[in-house]
């Protein structure tokens, strides 16, 4: 089936930036120096500082590429995702999608942008309206995005349901969310995200609410969709063990900043940043030995994002902290091995203090 309606919708765009869309130089999504701060107010009016949820994030995403963003809760990964979806406005920096800066899009173009980016929520049951059956759920985005013909919509729904292996399709169309199992609900959420043929899928912990036996099935499904649609995927998670099989690159985030970036195998086999190392040590594989000894865990908790510590934000918990450097100066980017980046002073060859 063609996506003629999509071309048509796109051409209706009015703002200037729109013409840029589609003229990207091969990069699908380019996030540059992104800062997202939430303002804190006292008594609802007096400025009382900012929560610096995302504080200087840079990355490029190619079409068809999958990236895993790993970090603890409160590290800003969800804010980053919401900013990319256009739900939160950044205070500084830009997000360029397919050649167009999304902060400059007009209403109509923003709507079009949203048809290009699918969103898979964390809790499938909470994300599906309980009073709509599956057909209504899947039709709604197409109605909003101007697919006028009912036949076309039904045909598209059938096609998507076949792709996510909810067959026979007729059995599922009149089902309400509560009649589906957890895995099927998550499939429905993925179907809803895919129904507008997006180029980018943003998945926020898509399997954390599911059973172990279903998780792999859902991740495999996303992987298949990625391959067959040349879909770019941003996979946000705190679970490192699922990342290895389903993404190509991993970014590790800590307190609003990316601290390490590398190819999956590179990062898991040779973690460089002390925080990444701590995460890897703490993630268990099923093994009897685990019960016999204590795990090494860095002391303390992630810092407050209102007043993040100066210098490297991990220095308060880091066992390798270099006094006078880590707690004073922000680490720049280092590249100790090709295409494996980290932001840690330990990898500075000409360390100033030496």
């Amino acid at each position, binding site marked *: 089936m063609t996506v003629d309606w999509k071309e048509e919708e796109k051409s209706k765009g009015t703002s200037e930036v729109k013409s840029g869309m589609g003229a990207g130089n091969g990069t699908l999504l380019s996030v540059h120096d992104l800062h997202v701060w939430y303002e804190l107010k006292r008594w609802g009016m007096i400025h009382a500082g900012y929560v610096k949820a995302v504080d200087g994030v840079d990355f490029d995403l190619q079409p068809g590429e999958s990236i895993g963003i790993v970090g603890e*809760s409160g590290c800003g990964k969800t804010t980053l995702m919401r900013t990319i979806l256009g739900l939160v406005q950044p205070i500084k920096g830009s997000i360029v999608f397919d050649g167009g800066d999304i902060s400059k899009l007009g209403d109509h173009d923003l709507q079009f942008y949203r048809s290009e980016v699918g969103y898979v929520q964390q809790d499938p049951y909470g994300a599906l309206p309980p009073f709509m059956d599956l057909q209504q759920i899947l039709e709604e985005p197409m109605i909003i995005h101007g697919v006028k013909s009912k036949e076309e919509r039904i045909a598209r729904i059938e096609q998507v349901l076949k792709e996510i292996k909810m067959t026979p399709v007729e059995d599922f169309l009149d089902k309400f969310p509560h009649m589906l199992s957890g895995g099927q609900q998550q499939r429905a959420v993925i179907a809803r995200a895919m129904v507008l043929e997006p180029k980018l899928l943003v998945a926020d912990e898509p399997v954390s609410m599911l059973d172990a*036996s279903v998780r792999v099935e859902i991740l495999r499904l996303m992987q298949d969709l990625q391959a067959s649609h040349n879909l770019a995927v941003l996979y946000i998670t705190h679970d490192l063990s699922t990342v290895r099989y389903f993404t190509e690159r991993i970014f590790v985030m800590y307190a609003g900043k990316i601290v390490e970036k590398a190819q999956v195998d590179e990062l898991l086999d040779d973690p460089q940043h002390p925080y990444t190392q701590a995460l890897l040590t703490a*993630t268990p*594989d099923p093994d009897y030995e685990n019960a016999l000894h204590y795990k090494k*865990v860095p002391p303390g908790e992630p810092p407050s994002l209102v007043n993040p510590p100066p210098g490297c934000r991990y220095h308060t918990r880091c066992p390798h902290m270099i006094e006078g450097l880590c707690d004073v100066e922000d680490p720049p980017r280092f590249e100790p091995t090709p295409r494996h980046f980290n932001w840690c002073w330990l990898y500075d060859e000409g360390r100033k203090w030496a």
Partner: protein
Amino acid sequence: MPENNKLLRVENLKLYFSTTMGTVQAVDDVNLELGYNEAIVIVGESGCGKTSFARGVLRLLPRNVHTYSGRIYLDNIDVMKLGDEQFRRDVRWEQMSMVPQAAMNALNPVLKIGDQVAEPLITHESMEKEQAWEKAREMVEKVGVPGDFLDRYAFELSGGMRQRVILAMALVTTPLLIFLDEPTSALDVLTQANIFNVLKRLKKEMKVSFILITHDVATSSELADRVAVMYAGQIVEVGHASTFFEAPLHPYSEMLMKSVPKLKVKEEPTFITGQPPSLLGPPTGCRFAERCPKRFDKCDEEPPLVMAKGHKVKCWLYV
């Protein structure tokens, strides 16, 4: 009454609920033994009856109970014979307590942490408030929460701290056995590792026994002495952790272990096709038969629980 050196023996526990759709056989004929200072993990998919099992043993029953039968010996006393009031006063929280699922949200938002941790002491052991607070302070410090946190409210604590407070609440009456229902599923990896360190230390220092209920096989290995696998209301395999994680016997356990993505080993995880049977009218015979790749004729009959290679397995392959 048979005497032996087990802390808990559950025999033929049945817990059925009546619903508008029919009778749900949530726990169907479960037998389980637990030694002193031992930790057993019950793993299984959601809806397999593992939480109902814990509630059944603790007699925390909802109103729509249809059948509740079997024998539960705790410290060689048949607690099923006790009346509800006596059970509440002498057993629940005195001898066994529970850390509920989503413990992060289990704290009362309008009471101070200290009042909540001290409450079991005041109601169960008729302690004076000051004394109870003193004991509560000692207990929260044991799980790694600063003593002055007792004056705070739940919203002032991070997720990991709240989880520890709940743990302190379950520990404060120094019970013999604690049920942990998905204690870390909502927490970050580092916090999770921290909590398990605390649990390991408690097991060593206070000689508590644990029944850990989870669907997360990887983290369950942090505490397990033994592993029990539950499927569709029944226990299908019980084995020592040292052999279980390496070589599970029941086809379901085997497939469950293969579905766990591993971080340090490169091994593609697989998944189990199909869904567990409805507990409204579970199939006769082996309940896993429909999804089982090793199914044969015998599987239409109910398999017995047999000993094989040191594990108890409910599968015809090992008869």
